[in-house]
């Protein structure tokens, strides 16, 4: 019983981090339908920025987080205007090539200025304190991540489903010409959505750095992980990604608890089975 409870709690805490690091990709790849392999690159830029701010300039964590996210958005906007705008029209394979090219340049840039070692982000020491939940000890920052993750998924759900921006975005992705004829400024909607995706990637990179530490090759090292969450969640569904992230977190944790020797095999076999049964993701029905 305690084992099951531990699996669920640890799994949710881990799943929330998976959600954090991949939610930006749910926006760019899931909603905007770009094969955005550069997603991890924005997380890397955010993390590197937070590293410099907290470690070199001694900025406290929360302002550094905000500043880094803004910095990434500021980088993302001209990048969208100059480069991504053209990438939208590319075929999927060309998108793969283009975004891999971008991610290589991002890695090389971070490598040039900060080297290829771990780039830690200093957090207030209190967040590392173990919190005793009675049946289980959990680090405080995991609890913070769980809360932030819940806020994030709620906010995004409302943004995409309930606001005009969300409707515009879905209309624009569905059919750009129709959307334009309805008077929707599709380039601006795309720009906003892209900036949102990049900003979320940065948030995820920084908050997830407790488990997936930032270093120059971060985007390549964890690419499979990001893709897994979005694929299992299903394209175009923030809530799907959320549920997928939690399920994968619990699945992976259960594997590590119960079958540690074959945990990785178990995890990927489970994903194979899942995708074989639900090829379009957890929430989307097979067509």
């Amino acid at each position, binding site marked *: 019983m305690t084992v099951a409870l*531990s*699996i669920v709690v*640890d799994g949710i*805490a*881990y799943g929330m*981090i998976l959600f954090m690091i991949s939610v930006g990709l749910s926006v760019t790849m899931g909603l905007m339908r770009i094969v955005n392999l550069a997603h991890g690159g924005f997380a890397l830029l955010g993390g590197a920025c937070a590293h410099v701010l907290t470690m070199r300039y001694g900025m406290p964590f929360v302002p550094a987080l905000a500043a880094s996210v803004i910095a990434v958005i500021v980088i993302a906007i001209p990048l969208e205007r100059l480069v991504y705008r053209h990438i939208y029209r590319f075929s999927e394979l060309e998108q793969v090539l283009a975004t891999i090219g971008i991610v290589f340049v991002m890695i090389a840039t971070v490598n040039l200025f900060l*080297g*290829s*070692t*771990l*780039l*830690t982000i*200093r957090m207030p*020491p209190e967040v*590392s*304190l*173990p919190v*005793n939940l009675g049946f289980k*000890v*959990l*680090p405080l*920052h995991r609890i913070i991540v769980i809360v932030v993750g819940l806020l994030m998924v709620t906010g995004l759900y409302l943004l995409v489903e309930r606001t005009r921006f969300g409707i515009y975005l879905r209309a624009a992705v569905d059919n750009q010409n129709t959307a334009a004829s309805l008077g929707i400024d599709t380039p601006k909607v795309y720009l906003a959505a892209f900036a949102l995706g990049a900003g979320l990637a940065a948030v995820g990179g920084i908050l997830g750095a*407790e*488990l*997936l*530490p930032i*270093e*120059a*090759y971060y985007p*390549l*090292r*964890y690419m499979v*992980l990001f893709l897994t969450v979005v694929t299992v969640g299903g394209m175009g569904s923030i809530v799907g990604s959320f549920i997928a992230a939690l399920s994968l*977190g619990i699945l*992976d*944790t259960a594997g*590590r*608890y119960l079958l*540690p*020797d074959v*945990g*990785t095999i178990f995890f990927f076999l489970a994903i194979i089975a899942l995708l074989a049964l639900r090829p379009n993701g957890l929430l989307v029905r097979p067509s």
Partner: protein
Amino acid sequence: MRRLCAGLLATAIATFALGGAALAETIKVGVIATFSGPNAIWGKQFKEAIQVYVAQHGNEVNGNTIEFIYKDVGGPNPDASKAAAQELLIREGVKYLAGFDFTPNALAVAPLINQAKVPAIIFNAATSAINKQSKYFVRTSFTLWQVAVPAAQWAAKNGAKKVVTAVSDYNPGIDAETAFGSAFEQQGGTIVEKIRMPLQTTDFAPFMQRIKNSGADTVFAFLPAGPATFAFTKAYSENGLKEAGIGFIGTGETDETTIDALGEQAIGLTTAYHYSDVHTSDLNRAFAAKLGELFPKSRANMASMGAYDGAHLIYKMIELAGTDGDKAIEAAKGLSWESPRGPVSIDPTSRHVVQNVYIRRVERDGGRLVNREFDLVKSVPDLGFDR
């Protein structure tokens, strides 16, 4: 221009294979390592340590000029390693090979050095069995057996009764687990559980729970330095293991190149290892000073020391045997010298470095974290060679 006829080529190879010219010449040393990609730190540490050695000792031995040539293989990539070795041996006519961060990269050149009779000095790759694949391999780093056994002996002597081992599930991890386990049980201790953690693990919380549940008083861990170590030590400190009274003993987890990234959570971690950059000796201080002078941003670690002593060994072999591979290997056997890490020698059978293994604890030293040595096990050979 570069056109060469095959005949000439064959002659060139024949000449170098016979080797051993007595005249003053340029003797080339080919260094095969990872200089690009996520593991580029290896190549960087190797190269800088060699440059420090050359800066301290000049580039001449017996009137011969020593030239180091570096080849990148981009990570664990045996195909590239073999191709690089071929190119170095044939085009550059190197008389010594060196480097080798990853085990497969070293194993891939074994057939080549056997044929060419060229010594290969391993600066890192830590699987005991490598040296059995060719009598031309000499190693100046360490093996997991060499550091894990002293770790077990020290732990047993210092109050550990029940230990849980937690290692990354790949060959070095298994080596560490076996070495530690057998030595610890020999000392009368009990291994209560052996946990093997998949290499891809990012969240170590489940393992922390298992470690706690195992009822052990100490955890022995082995993980590759980098993100895995970061996440593991973080999980160790944040899941209340320290508070639960479970001690930590490891080996290379607190590597100097990543220790500062580990931050406060690392303080107090105990490890058994063969080199710390704050080892107190004049030689080490001189080494650190030169390194700081040439590469102000760098910090020495075990890879630096493997390369530094490797360079020393190559100089010695050239001094004693010139470019005759067989003679050079014979000369290397039994050599002993004072290294920045302490007294070392080359065991004639295993062709592996015999060295002190230090017990260290992570402490804060000004703005950085260091592995402070407080105990040692003297003259440990490669205990895994005969297994």
